[in-house]
């Protein structure tokens, strides 16, 4: 899967923005938040979105330490993968630089862009703050 070179429009733009410290999400007029790409709000059907700044910090709501990974993360194990709430959006990200046992629900994190040790591919991560 790593041989794919085309960008994923929308999501790669989002990662670029997170890497630049300008993370954003798509907000529909009714306040529902999503990651790109989206053409319609799955919650209310609205088709107009505005870019809103992603909160600088979020809160971990659930975390697991992965010991058996897919090949593209084989050299990264063990790593913590977590859901973290940033206002109206919940992101899935990795916390490789942190001891997995220290990542617990309630932890405050900032979004970041990481590189897989295995493939060098970039991915969404969280930095504890």
């Amino acid at each position, binding site marked *: 899967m790593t041989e794919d070179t085309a960008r994923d429009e929308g999501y790669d733009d989002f990662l670029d923005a997170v890497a630049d410290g300008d993370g954003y999400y798509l907000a529909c007029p009714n306040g529902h938040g999503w990651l790109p790409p989206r053409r319609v709000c799955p919650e209310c059907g609205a088709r107009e979105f505005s870019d809103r700044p992603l909160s600088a910090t979020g809160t971990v709501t659930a975390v697991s330490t992965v010991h058996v990974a897919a090949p593209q993360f084989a050299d990264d194990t063990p790593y913590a*993968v977590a859901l973290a709430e940033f206002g109206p959006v919940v992101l899935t990200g990795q916390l490789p630089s942190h001891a997995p046992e220290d990542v617990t629900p309630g932890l405050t994190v900032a979004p970041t862009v990481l590189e897989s040790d295995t493939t060098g*591919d970039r991915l969404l991560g969280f930095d504890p703050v």
Partner: protein
Amino acid sequence: MTGVRVAGVGLTEFGVHPERTTRDLFAEAGLAALDDAAIPRDDVEAVLYGNFMSELSERQGHSGPLMAEALGLSVPATRVESACASSGMAARLAVRQLRAGEADVVVVGGAERMHNVSTARATEALAIAADALYEVSAGLTFPAAYALMAERYFQEYGGTHEDLAHIAVKNHANAVGNDYAQFQREISVAEVLDAQPIATPLTLLDSCPITDGAAALVLVSEDYAADHDVATPVAITGSGQGGDRMALGDRDSIARTPAATAAAEEAYADAGRGPADVDLAEVHDCFTIAEVLALESLGLFEEGTGIDAAPAGVTGPDGDRPVNLSGGLKAKGHPVGATGASQLVEATRLLRGDHHNADAVPDAEVAVTHNAGGTVASAVVHVLEVTR
């Protein structure tokens, strides 16, 4: 609208068969189902085939006609993909086709070949049932996704890993004597807790195995069964399907599975039955926590109480609500594309009385099957009833 009856069922042994192709596996299960039904092959009008990952494991797509050919049939055939719910969805489509009067005899089932690739590759293949952009790219594996669901469940309702371990223990014990099951051996709570960690808190023994295998059923219209004097003690009386957002982060709660709740409500209404009528259930326990979520979505236990069922023995063979008497995905095995059909096969045999655990439910009249795709972004539930 005609009713739908089960004329025949067939399974392969579930287990480690890396050398066996899906076409060979499905042919064995399908021919067994046709033999069980004792219906002339010329009467079969369609094949619906569930499969998840043959493109990745065998570099084989377009499996519908291939599987019809494997059964020696020249009929319209369609492959159905809905991750781990592929053949449950195929069965639902067959039920609807029969009810609509578009066919009188349909072969439905599924197969999966998984051991011809490495565990890492199989893990990668399974992960494609999650959201590739928002989840898999960040290293979320399938066990990790269910681990997050377990963590949220514990936070919202309480419960411990030890409670979950009782589910694995129960389902392993149920598989002893099931000649089709991958693991026909008992395990202990301590073994579950001490097993290799996969994605905390889940260990290897909280997880269903990687499995090769196939399952098939011959479904017929009530009219066909009557006109041809085919013995069909079991009917599929209810069918329901539900859906949810793909990514866990985009759901209202990951401690519940509303797709399965919607599927169950539709299936019960369809059958004119309710949770109180259910005598036994075969549910999608791909990980121990998944059985808890299934029990609650099926309405068999109140929200937040499904975790207590196995430790209390309620879902055991001697309990009020036996669940996964086959051994479940956990011990019987989980050949992804075959699982939904295999649940229907096991439920049919339990109701017919020719199952190794049928003695546990001698008076059972109503069974439900619960088959989930991915992290339950898709779900299908069926109600089966026996006429004695």
